[in-house]
């Protein structure tokens, strides 16, 4: 591991200035739990490391009129315990709490877990079904991107060299909304997810599905939604039969790979099972909320 320069800006503006000067030579350091390992193994060889740890505003979690704003540097441990994440937003707590061990969660951040753009990142499916918006700042100003459009491939995002993710916005959730994330892994949280499934269901007064989202992790180059299954269930009263049909559609719409953790066939089959469990639980949550 060798890099030439280490910067620790105190403001977002200062950070963007450094990023625009350094271009593709720079890597941002959030919690370091992924970056430092990859620097050491030489998977990444940046010339410059820009630490975000001295920019206080990036760690803030604020409830505003139009939703909840979570700073990109909010630590996963704090997110997993945040009392501001109520009701259907609790799915974001679950995702953060599912990442690795206590030691890792104390350092790792919500923005870091997102910007690594791992297809199996535990926080992302829950954020996607919550309709999270990524707020980005760059040399040319601010822009916002729906989180599901933020990823372009494994390890790849829409961020330009001079841009940084500053916060997530979670729009307010409707009444009668339930959201559930389930991770499947061999060795619990410490292990990387074989698959991760998030589902969010909003019911109307008649108990029919007014709105719903399904997001799958670990089964495609990025976290994906399943619009066909969502369309099938929307406007209907949920039955076991319908949920099973949606689960089959979800398993048919993913394109997993075979790796050390599982084969693609196993992942496909587990998506069917996990989508069924997640939707059943989310519908129950929705009735309670």
């Amino acid at each position, binding site marked *: 591991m060798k890099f030439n*320069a280490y910067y620790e800006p105190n403001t977002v503006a200062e950070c963007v200035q450094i990023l625009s000067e350094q271009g593709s030579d720079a890597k941002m350091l959030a919690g*370091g*739990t992924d970056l430092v390992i990859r620097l*050491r193994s030489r998977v990444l060889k940046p010339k410059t490391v820009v630490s975000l740890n001295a920019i206080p505003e990036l760690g803030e979690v604020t409830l505003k009129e139009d939703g909840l704003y979570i700073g990109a540097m909010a630590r996963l441990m704090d997110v997993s315990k945040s009392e501001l994440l109520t009701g259907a937003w609790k799915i974001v707590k679950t995702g953060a709490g599912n990442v690795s061990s206590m*030691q*890792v969660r*104390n350092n790792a951040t919500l923005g870091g877990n997102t910007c690594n753009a791992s297809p199996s990142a535990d926080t992302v499916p829950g954020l996607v079904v919550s309709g999270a918006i990524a707020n980005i700042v760059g040399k040319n100003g601010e822009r916002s991107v729906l989180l599901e459009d933020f990823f372009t491939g494994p390890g790849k995002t829409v961020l330009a060299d001079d841009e940084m993710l500053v916060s997530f916005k979670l729009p307010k959730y409707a009444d009668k909304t339930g959201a559930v994330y389930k991770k499947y892994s061999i060795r619990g949280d410490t292990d990387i997810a074989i698959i991760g499934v998030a589902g969010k269901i909003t019911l109307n007064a008649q108990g029919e599905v007014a709105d719903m989202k399904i997001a799958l992790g670990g089964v495609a180059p990025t976290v994906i939604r399943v619009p066909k299954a969502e369309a099938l269930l929307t406007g209907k009263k949920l039955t076991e039969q319908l949920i099973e049909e949606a689960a089959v559609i979800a398993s048919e719409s993913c394109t997993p790979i075979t790796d050390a953790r599982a084969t693609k066939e196993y992942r496909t089959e587990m998506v069917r099972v996990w989508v069924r469990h997640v939707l059943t639980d989310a519908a129950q949550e929705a009735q309670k909320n």
Partner: protein
Amino acid sequence: MQNRANYIQVECEINGKPVDLFISPDRTVVDVLRNELGLTGTKQGCDDGNCGACTILVDGKAAKSCSMLIGQIRNKKVTTIEGVSDGDVLHPMQQAFIDHFAIQCGFCTPGMIMTAIAILNENPNANEDDIREGLHGNLCRCTGYVKIVEAVEDARDQINAGGAN
């Protein structure tokens, strides 16, 4: 090695003492603790963020020192295994590990003890499930965890009784 022109200044507190480092920014915390400061109680195990042998406390919270660049402890209070007792009397957690024979080869022990202290910092009444969940990120390849969990429970009870040692 690095050109000293790239060195950074890192002021921090380690085991209660102020430390002022002038150091290459590409070094990890565990590397500096062991090889610059002689604090070899913190073990370098997998060096990959998995085994937990390098666990230290940063502002009272457990962290894996192999996955942190030295700049990340700037202005922080770091505690290593060398800093948990005053040098005369063992910390109740250390004593409990000995009393319960929660040690075989001993390599994971400093990390286990630091994590266990962090678990009780976070929740002084941690039950067995909380302890097992908290120790999730620490691997022991000898004892099978039962005695380690028993040691942490005993230390918890002694600390809560207020009179350990």
